[in-house]
C-alpha cells in the first residue's frame, strides 16, 4: 500500500513538474525555435542581462506584486480586525462581497475594472494594474487572516490593557504578533497570485507597460524569446533554493503556536 501511494504521489508530481522541466531544458537550447534541439548553450542567460525589454517587464512585475501584496496586506488586516468585531449579519455580507473577486471569473473582474477605469477617465498604465491587483489580492489576505483571528483569545488583549498598555501597544505587542503568521501567508499568497496573473492585467494595462505575463502573451504569437525561458528558470530555481533553506532550518516558532 505504501508503494502504491508513493507511486501515485510521484506520478502527480511528474505531471505538475514535467512542463517546468521542459522549460528549463528549453532555456539551454541553442536553436531559437521551440521544436528543434540545437545543442547546449548558456547564451540566453548572457543575453538576458542585456535584454532591457524583459528586464523592464520583470521590474514592473515584481514591483506590482510587492506593492499590491503589501497594500492588500495592510487593508486586509484592518478589514479582518474590523470584521471580527462586527455583527454576524454584516460580517456575512462583507465576507460575501470579499469573496466576489475570488469566485468571479477573472475575465469578468478584468473587464469590469476596465470599464470602471475608462468611465472615470483614468489613464491606463502602472496605476491601473496596481489598483486591480490590490483588489483581487485583498480577499486572499483576509482569507488567510480570518482563521487566525478566530483563534485569538480576547482575554490576552484585555489583560494587556489591564496591565496598563495602551490600545496601540496592546495591538502591536499582543494582537499583531499572533496574527503575523496569517498576515505573512496572506502576503505570500497575494504576491504569488499577482505574479501569476495574466487575464486581469491583460484588460487593465496601458501602452508601453508590460508585466512578464502580458509580454509572454504577445511573444507567444511571434515565438517566445529563449531569454524568457532563462529568466523563468532563474526565478524558479531561486524560489526552490529559498524554499529548501526555509524548510531546513528548524522552525521553533511553529511549535509554540
Amino acid at each position, binding site marked *: 500500500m505504501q508503494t502504491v501511494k508513493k507511486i*501515485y*504521489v510521484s506520478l*502527480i508530481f511528474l505531471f*505538475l*513538474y*514535467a*512542463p*517546468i522541466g*521542459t*522549460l528549463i531544458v528549453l532555456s539551454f537550447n541553442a536553436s531559437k525555435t*521551440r*521544436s528543434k534541439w540545437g545543442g547546449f548553450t548558456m547564451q540566453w542567460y548572457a543575453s538576458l542581462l542585456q535584454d532591457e525589454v524583459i528586464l523592464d517587464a520583470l521590474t514592473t512585475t515584481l514591483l506590482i506584486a510587492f506593492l499590491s501584496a503589501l497594500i492588500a496586506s495592510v*487593508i486586509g488586516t*484592518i478589514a479582518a*480586525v*474590523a*470584521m471580527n*468585531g*462586527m455583527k454576524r449579519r*454584516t460580517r*456575512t455580507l*462583507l465576507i*460575501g*462581497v470579499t469573496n466576489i473577486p475570488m*469566485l*468571479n*471569473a477573472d*475575465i*469578468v*473582474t478584468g*473587464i*469590469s475594472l*476596465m*470599464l*470602471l477605469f475608462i*468611465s472615470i477617465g483614468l489613464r491606463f498604465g502602472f496605476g491601473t494594474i496596481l*489598483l*486591480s491587483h*490590490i*483588489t483581487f489580492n485583498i480577499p486572499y489576505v483576509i482569507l488567510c487572516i480570518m482563521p487566525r483571528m478566530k483563534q485569538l483569545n480576547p482575554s490576552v488583549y484585555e489583560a494587556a490593557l489591564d496591565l496598563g498598555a495602551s*490600545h*496601540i501597544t*496592546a*495591538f502591536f505587542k499582543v494582537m499583531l504578533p499572533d496574527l503575523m503568521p496569517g498576515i505573512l501567508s496572506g502576503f505570500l499568497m497575494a504576491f*504569488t497570485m499577482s*505574479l*501569476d496573473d495574466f*487575464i486581469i492585467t491583460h*484588460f487593465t494595462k496601458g501602452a508601453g507597460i508590460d508585466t512578464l*505575463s502580458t509580454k*509572454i*502573451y504577445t511573444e*507567444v504569437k511571434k515565438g517566445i524569446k529563449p531569454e*524568457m*525561458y532563462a529568466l*523563468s528558470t532563474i526565478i*524558479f530555481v531561486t*524560489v*526552490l533554493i529559498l*524554499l529548501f533553506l526555509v524548510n531546513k532550518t528548524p522552525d521553533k516558532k511553529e511549535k509554540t503556536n
Partner: protein
Amino acid sequence: MSSSMKKLHSLYTDKSGKGKLLAAPYVFWSAFFIIIPLCMILYYGVTDKTGAFTLQNITAIASIGHARAFWRSLLLSVVSTVICFLLAYPLAMILSGMKEKKHNFIILIFILPMWMNFLLRTLAWQTLLEKTGVINGILSFFKLPSLRIINTPYAIVLGMVYNFLPFMVLPLYNALSKIDENVINAAKDLGANKIQTFFRVIMPLSIPGIISGVTMVFVPALTTFVISTLLGGSKVLLIGNVIEQEFTQASNWHLGSGLSIVLMIFIILNMIVSALLDKED
C-alpha cells in the same frame, strides 16, 4: 498616525456598532472596485449602443454560435473538475496522512509551479504535445503510435486539469487534515469498516473543502480563454474566447457584458449553495 490608530482601537473594542469605521477603508475599496464595476457590467449588459434597455445581449447566449461555445465550455469544465477531483482526493488523503512537520512544505510544493509563469507552463504543454513535440519524439523512438491531441478539446481538458489541480488539492488537503483522528477511530470502534468510515465520516467532514475546491476549479475552467487559445489552436471556441473577442476585437461591449452576466449567474448560484451549506453547520 498614532492618534488615529488609538481611535481605531477604541472602536474595535467597542462593539456597539462604531466598529464599522475601522472597516471603512475596506468597505469603500470593495464598493469602488468590486461593486461599482459589476454594476457597470450589468448596465452595459442590459443596454444597447444607443443606451436603451434591452435583454438581447443576455438572450444572445441562445444564438447558435454562442450556445455551442457555452455548452462546450460547460462540458469541458465539468469534465476537468471531475478529473481534478478524482485525482486530488486520494492525493489529499495520502498527504494529510503524512507527518505533521511537512505541512508547509507540501503546500509550498503545490504553489511552487505558480512561480513559473502560467502562460509559459501552458505553452510548455504545447511543446510536449505537438506533432513534432517531445512526447511524440519519445513515442516514435519506441516505435509507438503517436499522440494526436493538440488542438483538440482533449488538450484543453489536460491544460485545465494541469493548471487548476493545485486549487483542488489545497482546500481538500486543508479540510482532510483538520479531521480529528479520534472521530475516525470512534467510527471504527463502533464497527464501521473502511468504506463506511470513508463515506459516512471522512467524506461528509470534507465537504467544505470539496465545495471550495470544486468552485476554484470549475469557475476558471468555465471562463478561460487562454488555455483554449494556446492548446486548442483557436479551433475550439469557448465562451471565454467569445467574451474576450467581443471586448478586444469586435468592440461590442454590450454583448460582451451581457454574456458575462450569464457567467455571473453561475457564480451567484455557487455562492448561494455554499451559503446554504454553511448555515447547516
